[in-house]
Each structure stands twice: as C-alpha cells, then as structure tokens.
C-alpha cells in the first residue's frame, strides 16, 4: 500500500483535491432548504431556465453541425478558389468570443444601427428600421454561440476526414456511389466519433455560456444560477440549479470521453493508407463551395471584426480613454502565469502516470479533468462559498487570521480557479503528446544509463515540444476570452480586455466596448495564426 505514496501520487492527489472541492460544494448544498424566495416562482423559473437551456443547446448543436462538418468536408475533399486559405482561416472564428459576437450583432442590426447607416448612405433617408431584421434574445444568443464555437466541430471533423482511408472512398466509387451517397454512407459515419467529440465540446461550452446570454438577458440554467445567487441571495437554489446543470454536463462529458476513445482508435489505424487526392470542382460547384466557405468565414470572423473596427474609427475618443498597454500586460501576465502552472502540474501528473503505472493515480487524474465541464460562473461561486465556509468554521476556530484576503480579489485566487477550469485542457493535451512517445524509448534511455530526471528533460521534453506549445496556445486563448471567473475574482484596479468590454457593454456603452473587443480579437487571432499548423494537426505526422 505504502509503496504508492511517492511524489507523483501526492501531486496528483493535491490537484484532484483542489478540483473536487467546488464540485462537492455544489452537491453538498443540494439538500439544503432554499430560503428567501417563493416556491411557486422557483418552479416557474426552473422550468423556464431548463427549457431555454435545451432550446439553446439543440439549436446551437444543429447549426454548428451544419457549419462545422459542411466546411470541413469541402476543404478536405475538394479544390476550389481559396480552399487552402479557408482551411486555416476558418479557425480564426475562435478569436471571437460569443459575447463580442453578440455586441456586433446588436450594433449592426439594432434600430439606427450600422445596417441602417449603410442603407441610409446608399439610398438616402427613409425608415429602414422596420425592414431590418432584429437578431436579439434567443435568436441572437444562438447565432453568437454557433458562429463562435463551430470551430470545435470543424477542427476535429477535418482532422478525422484528413486521415480517412482513401481505399474506403475508392471502394464507394467502385460500387457506383455518387459524391452525396459516399458522403452520407461512408465519409460521415466514419467521422462520427470526431463529430460527436466536437459537438459535445460545443454543448459543454453552450451550457456554460455566460457573457452572450447575459447580454441578451436570456435566462438559462447558468445565468439562472448566477441570478438566483445574486438577485435572490439564494445560494441553495443556485446550487440546486447547478446540480441540474451538472447532470446535463456530466452526461455530455461521458459521451465526449467515450467518443474520443473511439476517435483515437480510428486515428491509430491509419498507417499504410495512401494520401488522399482532392477533387477539383467544376465551375459552378466550385463557386458554391467558395460561397459557402466565404460566408462562414465572413460571418464568423470578418463581420464582428469589421463592426468593432468601424466603431473604433467612428468613436475614436474611446481608443484614447483606454490604457491599452496596461490591459495588454494584465492579460499577458494572467496567460503566462496560468500556462506555466497548468503545464507544470500536468507534466508532473502525466509523467507520474507514465513511470508509476498506478491505477489509483490514473483514477485521480481522470477525476481532476472534470473541471472543464463546470461553467466558470459556478466554479467562481463555489470557490467563494467554500473559502468563506472554510475560513469561518476552521481557520477562525483554530484562532488563525482570516485567509479570505489571500483568495478573494487576489491573483492567487484567480489563477487557482483558472487552474480548476482549464486543467483538463493542459492534462489531455500533454497526455496525447506522451502517447506518441513509445514506452520503449524510456527503456532504451535507462539502458543507456540515463536517470529518470535526465530522461524527462533530455528525451520527453523535446518530444513534447509541439504538444506543450499547442497546450500553451489553447490555455492562452481560453484565458484571453475568459469572463465570469475574472469578473468575480479579480483584484483592485485590475482589468483585462474581456472585463473592460463586458463592463462597458453592460453600462450601455457598446461603442466603448468596441475598442477592448477589437484588441481581444486581434490578439487572439495573432495567437491562432502563428500556431494554426499545430491546431490543424497537419504537421504532427
């Protein structure tokens, strides 16, 4: 028993404990009496929140499926104008978080908005407002989330298409399948695990979405949790909602994990397949393919980018009001600090799993990746609840000074909750990197007299370089866009691009929100561009 108790075990145990705390906090208060609020209204709300969440989820899944697999299919199998450009340009959509997309939609379509201005400049003064469609409320939320998140489906599906067996497709051709039939009966089914994995990521993010739905005042389970906690002081009701939400999410989480396993099996069996040839499309078909991809690219990236740019130019005074250098430094600071800590602990856990091959350790690390499934708002609320409880009942009883100041409104608390939320990104990213290093490599190294430490530093790290870079970028993107955790836990005089944009927008100063939003998009797009080849996995083989 005691032979398990080594440094790897303790570090994994430590990580799991940190992550399990908020989950336990949520579940422990499920059976508490809910106070301060009226039972009947609560039931009304519960129904409305659940219904809205389901409506949002189903619509977003449908849209992201169509956009994601559609564009992935076109760029993987066909050649048409700019198809190689679209291949990576479509992932730029990740640079636009749903809440900034929501600001752009409103800015463009609202009464006397940008669309009105364009029409007025083209055709002269008239009342165009009643003819301009309004994308707000539920519809606005669905569009914002879909165009911001379809990239998950696109990336995973495309990777799966890329390695699909050419023989299989040739076989379809020999059987006389036309391209539609081979798409439905061969290509799509064999990419299913990847599509499901992409869709479940979208689903988790949709359920966790806070900024956009809050902006459009749509009550979902997640905003419901926030509101019942904040407006009604009803932590217990908030936690009950969280419980429902977590049930949803854990189901998705399990689906995602299962399909990932299948997807892996699928990827691994690709050896020996011949490289796929792309079809050159006939003129009219090439045009349709081009239009589809261009529309997706335009709507998901160019549209929000140009709306924010337009506003920045139209209201330039906002540009000078903002301490951009400071915001940039704060954002970079959070990105680096969190990336370093996340990567460090994931490396330790992964390495520990590899060298000790311990079942308990494996279970612990599986537990500790569940943080990603929990919305940031809930994590932040649970974190505050837990620390306040811990401080009141244990620390103060023992006669120590309060620890609240260490965790509330401090960078430590902020990074800690980021850690809980994004640990699975780092852990899984490094894990998939490790899986590519054959265990024989380690054994050969030991035979050559390398110590464990030397093996780790001189052999593993160089092998893992690409994975580490990829993980670093993923974490950076998440943290640049992150809103609810930063909003609730950040220290005095500390803003990021995301919080500045959110606060201006919530104060009905959308024009002022344009400047930080623009910078956020540009920085995130820069990160994506320099690493697109890692994200697209073209280079990994």
């Amino acid at each position: 028993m005691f032979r398990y108790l080594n440094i790897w075990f303790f570090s994994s145990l430590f990580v799991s404990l940190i992550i399990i705390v908020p989950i336990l906090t949520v579940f422990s208060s499920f059976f508490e009496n809910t106070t301060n609020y009226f039972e009947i209204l609560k039931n009304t709300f519960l129904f409305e929140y659940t219904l809205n969440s389901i409506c949002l989820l189903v619509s977003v899944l449908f849209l992201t499926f169509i956009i994601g697999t559609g564009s992935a299919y076109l760029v993987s199998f066909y050649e048409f104008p700019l198809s190689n450009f679209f291949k990576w340009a479509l992932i730029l959509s990740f640079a636009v978080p749903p809440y900034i997309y929501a600001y752009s939609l409103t800015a463009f379509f609202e009464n006397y908005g940008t669309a009105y201005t364009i029409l007025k400049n083209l055709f002269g003064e008239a009342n165009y407002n009643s003819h301009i469609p309004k994308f707000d409320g539920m519809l606005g939320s669905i569009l914002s989330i879909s165009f911001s998140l379809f990239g998950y489906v696109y990336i995973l599906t495309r990777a799966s298409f890329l390695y699909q067996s050419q023989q299989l497709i040739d076989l379809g051709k020999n059987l006389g399948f036309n391209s539609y039939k081979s798409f439905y009966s061969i290509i799509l089914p064999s990419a299913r695990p990847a599509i499901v994995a992409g869709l479940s990521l979208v689903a988790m993010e949709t359920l966790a979405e806070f900024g956009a739905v809050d902006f459009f005042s749509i009550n979902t389970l997640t905003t419901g949790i926030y509101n019942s906690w904040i407006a009604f002081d009803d932590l217990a009701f908030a936690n009950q909602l969280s419980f429902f939400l977590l049930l949803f999410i854990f189901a998705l989480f399990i689906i995602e994990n299962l399909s990932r396993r299948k997807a892996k099996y699928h990827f691994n069996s690709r050896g020996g397949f011949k490289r796929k040839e792309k079809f050159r499309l006939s003129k009219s078909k090439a045009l349709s393919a081009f239009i589809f991809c261009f529309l997706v690219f335009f709507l998901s990236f160019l549209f929000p980018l140009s709306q924010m740019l337009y506003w920045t130019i139209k209201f330039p005074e906002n540009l000078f009001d903002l301490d951009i250098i400071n915001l940039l430094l704060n954002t970079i600071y959070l990105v680096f600090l969190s990336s370093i800590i996340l990567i460090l602990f994931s490396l330790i856990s992964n390495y520990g799993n590899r060298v000790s091959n311990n079942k308990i350790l494996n279970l612990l690390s599986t537990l500790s990746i569940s943080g990603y499934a929990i919305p940031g708002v809930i994590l932040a609320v649970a974190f505050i609840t837990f620390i306040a409880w811990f401080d009141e009942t244990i620390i103060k009883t023992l006669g120590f000074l309060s620890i609240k100041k260490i965790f509330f409104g401090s960078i430590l608390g902020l990074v800690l909750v980021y850690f809980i939320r994004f640990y699975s990104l780092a852990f899984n990213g490094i894990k998939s990197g490790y899986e590519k290093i054959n265990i024989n490599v380690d054994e050969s190294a030991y035979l050559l007299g390398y110590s464990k430490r030397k093996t780790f530093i001189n052999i593993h790290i160089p092998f893992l370089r690409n994975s580490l870079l990829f993980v670093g970028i993923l974490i950076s993107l998440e943290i640049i866009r992150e809103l609810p955790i930063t909003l609730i836990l950040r220290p005095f005089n500390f803003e990021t691009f995301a919080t500045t944009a959110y606060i201006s927008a919530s104060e009905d100063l959308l024009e002022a929100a344009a400047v930080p939003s623009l910078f956020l998009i540009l920085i995130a797009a820069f990160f994506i561009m320099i690493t697109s080849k890692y994200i697209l996995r073209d280079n990994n083989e």
Partner: protein
Amino acid sequence: MKKISILALITSLFVSAIAVANEVNIFNARHYKADSELYSKFTNMTGIKVNLINGKSGALEKRILSEGADSSADLYITADAGRCGAMDAKGALQGGLTSAAIKDAVPKSFRTSKWVGIAKRARIIYYSPERVSGAELSGMTYEGLADPKWKGRLVIRKSSNIYNKSLVASLIKNNGKKATAEWAKGVVANMARTPTGNDRAQIMAVAAGEADIAVANTYYLALMLSGKKGAEQQAAAKKVKAFFPNQNDRGTHMNVSCAALVKGAPNKANAVKLVEFLLTPESQEHFTNNTFEFPMIDGVSPSPLVVNNLGLDFKQDMKTKLASYGKNQAAAVEVMTAAGWK
C-alpha cells in the same frame, strides 16, 4: 539560480501589497468615464489613492458579503437606490455619512446615515409626438401605463432590470402589492413586443415606429442628443419627446446613484472625504455635464441638453423614501414575474 528568481517573481506577484497606504477602496458599479476623471481629481487634491474594482452591482455585493468583516471595501457605489437599501438590510453597511457637509447638501429622503445619493435620475415616459396626442397624455401617471388605451403601444425593459425593479417597488410602496400586481398585468397586456434591449433601445423603438410610448431614464435621451452615440441616434432622439408622469400627485419617480459606507471599512475617514468631494458643486457639475444626470445638490443646474429638451421644472417625487426601493424589491420581482413580465 534561474529557478529561484522565477520562484521569487511568482511569489512576489501573488502577495499583494500589504503596506498600509493612504487610500480608499471603491467597489464600483457605475462605469462612466466622468467618474474616473473625478477620482483622479480627488487623488490630486488630497493625495488619497482611489482603488477601484469594477463590476455589476450583484457580483460586487456578493464579494463584499462573502468577505464579511475582512472586506477591503470602503465604499460601494452603484446606480440604484434599491441596491444600497438591500445592502443595508443585509447589515453590510455602517453609519457615518453624517457630516454637516453631507447633511446640508442632500435632501433627507435621498440619504440615510449609511448611504447617500450622489446624482439623480428620473424614470420617465418618452412618446412619439406624431402618434400620441397631448390630450392622450394629459395627466398621465405610471399607474396609467396599464390603461388599455395603450394596448400594443408600450415598450419597456425586462423585469430583471434594476431600474424597473425600483420603479415597481415605489408603486408597491404607494399603492400596495395587490394593486401593483393588477397593474403589472395591465402593463404586460399593453406591451408592443416582448421586452428586449436597454433603455436606449426602448427610446429608439419609439423613434423607429415600433411603439408609441417607452419608459426609460432621463439621461439616455440627452446622451443620444449629445451626438456621443453618432449622428443616426442624434436624429432618432429628435423624433421623441419626454413626458414627466404623476405631475398632479406625488411627482415623477426619482432614483439616485448612491455611495454606501461598508461595515468594517478600513479607510472610513477617506471614504467620507470622497463622498463629500462628490457632493461639491464642481463634482456635481461634472456629473451633470457628462453623464446627463440631475444634480443631487441645489445650486447646480442640469446640462443644457437636459434642460432644453426635457425641461427643468417638473415635480420630483420627494415623498417616497428611496429606502423603500430596497425593501420592496423582492415583492416587485414577484409581482412582475407573476404577471408574465419577461
């Protein structure tokens, strides 16, 4: 060596400055550029550093409450009297805003010993002069918004909006919960659309012909007229006129931005100084000219944009205590939700 320096760097980043400084910590839910300009001015005058944490009122309140006695908050500044009242009800505030400077400046119904109003706004009716006649509006009250003659002609924000909660809370205070519940049903029946968008969007809906009357705060129209929101909105604002309800009885519903003194404030004296500073004529003038709110103190006039377009001589409701907004907030939410007010 490298490792140690990195480690030292990280630790030093985590440990916030513990040294006691001459400062005041504000949990701030008002995010106007004008405010930060005033805070810089205060720092220049007094040498007291102003630390800000910006956020929405709810989240800030939660942080103050969770931090409890250990909270670093001195002042909580927000744009709704109901929020200050609610914080008071939770025992999170302390008395102390009782200096002569404050008492002389602010009328009694706009302050308690724990929080004071620093700028006023009225929640009024906007109408389209093309589609609404003077006779129709004559003697119009908030109560009258439920009149069936407005069926399909009214726009107003969601029930989750804080300004609506305070307005409904004041109606509960004046007319009772039962009457207000009936009123809410009438309002919902009159709505031209499911509530969506902010106050400015309601005004623009009237300008665009989606509705004939809208309920929104005073400073939004001035903001649009100022051209700060672009030429299109400036033109739109000119298509809409302001009407101050309840002129024949208690007066128009007033709300304030308020500054509240947090219990256990580590820099209490500095906090009081800052509140006094915000109530000086210079600061008040800065507010009125930039945020287009009404001044809290006598002797300062609102921005010309407000005076010329909204009028100055209207009867303000000075009778309904602002503290009642916080007390009746839960009931207001209940009433609106029960009426199906989205």
